[in-house]
């Protein structure tokens, strides 16, 4: 899909509500994204190291994430297994760890990268203080089809960041390549909005994007 070593958004900050485990994906890597009891965000591989069950169906206990299958608990921060209910008196081996990705919060989004090099890539620079996000759209299509549709309303700044054609609509569109089937588009509003205006603009922009991307769902047969 791509071999670019860079940060991609994986979900909106607001979506990590208390006790929730969000499910996301980046470049074919399934992710469990969660906020712990002290507000720290964790981007983990969505796979229990024991039997491979998705951690996104598990429980966010605040200080740990608990797998649904055998109840193994993995500590916030390290991803280290700290409790195995079938062997409550044993200290779990040190190699029983969830694979973690580096996470970051910026522009109202959670970001991560797939480490293709040893270095930490630069966070994209956007002309936004701390962005206000609108509703994200997850499209069931490959990247080229999504870019064709996006081209109707926006123009690229780089391959993954687009700007609305309309000068009066201060929106950046940030692309999240999930896998061959899904691409997410996150909408960032540049500027201040009251809650009331934000809802109104969210509704308006949601309708506009739904219309722009309708061709994708018509082609796949989801929309008749």
């Amino acid at each position, binding site marked *: 899909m791509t071999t670019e070593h860079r940060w991609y958004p994986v979900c909106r900050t607001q979506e990590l509500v208390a006790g929730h485990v969000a*499910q996301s994906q980046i470049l074919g890597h399934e992710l469990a994204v969660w906020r712990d009891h002290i507000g720290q965000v964790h981007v983990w591989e969505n796979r229990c190291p024991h039997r491979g069950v998705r951690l996104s169906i598990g429980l966010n206990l605040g200080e740990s994430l608990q797998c649904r299958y055998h109840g193994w608990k993995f500590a916030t921060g390290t991803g280290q297994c700290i409790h195995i209910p079938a062997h409550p008196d044993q200290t779990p081996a040190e190699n029983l760890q969830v694979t973690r990705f580096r996470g970051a919060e910026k522009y109202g989004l959670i970001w991560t990268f797939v480490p293709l090099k040893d270095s930490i890539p630069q966070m994209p620079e956007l002309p936004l203080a701390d962005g206000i996000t609108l509703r994200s759209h*997850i499209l069931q299509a490959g990247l080229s089809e999504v870019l064709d549709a996006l081209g109707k309303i926006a123009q690229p700044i780089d391959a993954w960041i687009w700007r609305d054609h309309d000068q009066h609509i201060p929106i950046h569109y940030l692309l999240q390549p999930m896998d061959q089937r899904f691409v997410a588009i996150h909408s960032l509003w540049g500027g201040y909005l009251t809650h009331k205006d934000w809802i109104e603009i969210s509704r308006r922009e949601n309708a506009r994007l739904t219309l722009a991307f309708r061709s994708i*769902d018509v082609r796949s047969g*989801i*929309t008749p």
Partner: protein
Amino acid sequence: MIKLYDYEISGNCYKVRLLMKILGVPFESIPLDFYPGREHKSDWFLAINPLGQLPVLVEDNFCLRDSHAILIYLASKFDESKTWYPTRDPVQMGRVNMWLSFADAITSAAGAARLHDSFFYDMDAEQVRRQAHRLFQILDETLWFSEQENDGWLCPGVLPTIADIACFPYVMLSEEGGISRLPYPAIRRWTDRVKKIPGFMIMPGIFNGPE
């Protein structure tokens, strides 16, 4: 006592059990061998429900089929607050009824895909999966805006209604029919909320939420 002709892993039976648990209504379950026994198509059961469908509620001489008709009956009879099925509020009642029909569509799409994948029913599985995705898109969009403007339930207001109970099971079981909920983050958060309703109970394939 209420009797329920029941099948443990039917989403439509589960939604009725779930509401009875939430409302504290005692009942007796009469389990049928739906798969592989096809007992719901047996002569004795067709005499009770000629449609050959579960669940069926029986209370003395009163017999009621159709899971959503049963939800309406139970909420109207046993919920004194009149919030689960708001008979005193025609606007809200209209909205609940709209989502009950939507829940039937979910059953015919996501529920059918599960019958294909897990119970080996013969059908165009790709077609019903596409229908389910269209319904889930509408559900996700509704719930996203409900989170911003209300309390995140299907119908505006601070409390859940039987609309949430009716839509919940076949959404939760969708992966058993090959329908991923990865593209529906607002649906995923709503299912967490449903699991926090006091009295929530599980069925095979639908687990508890965080305490």
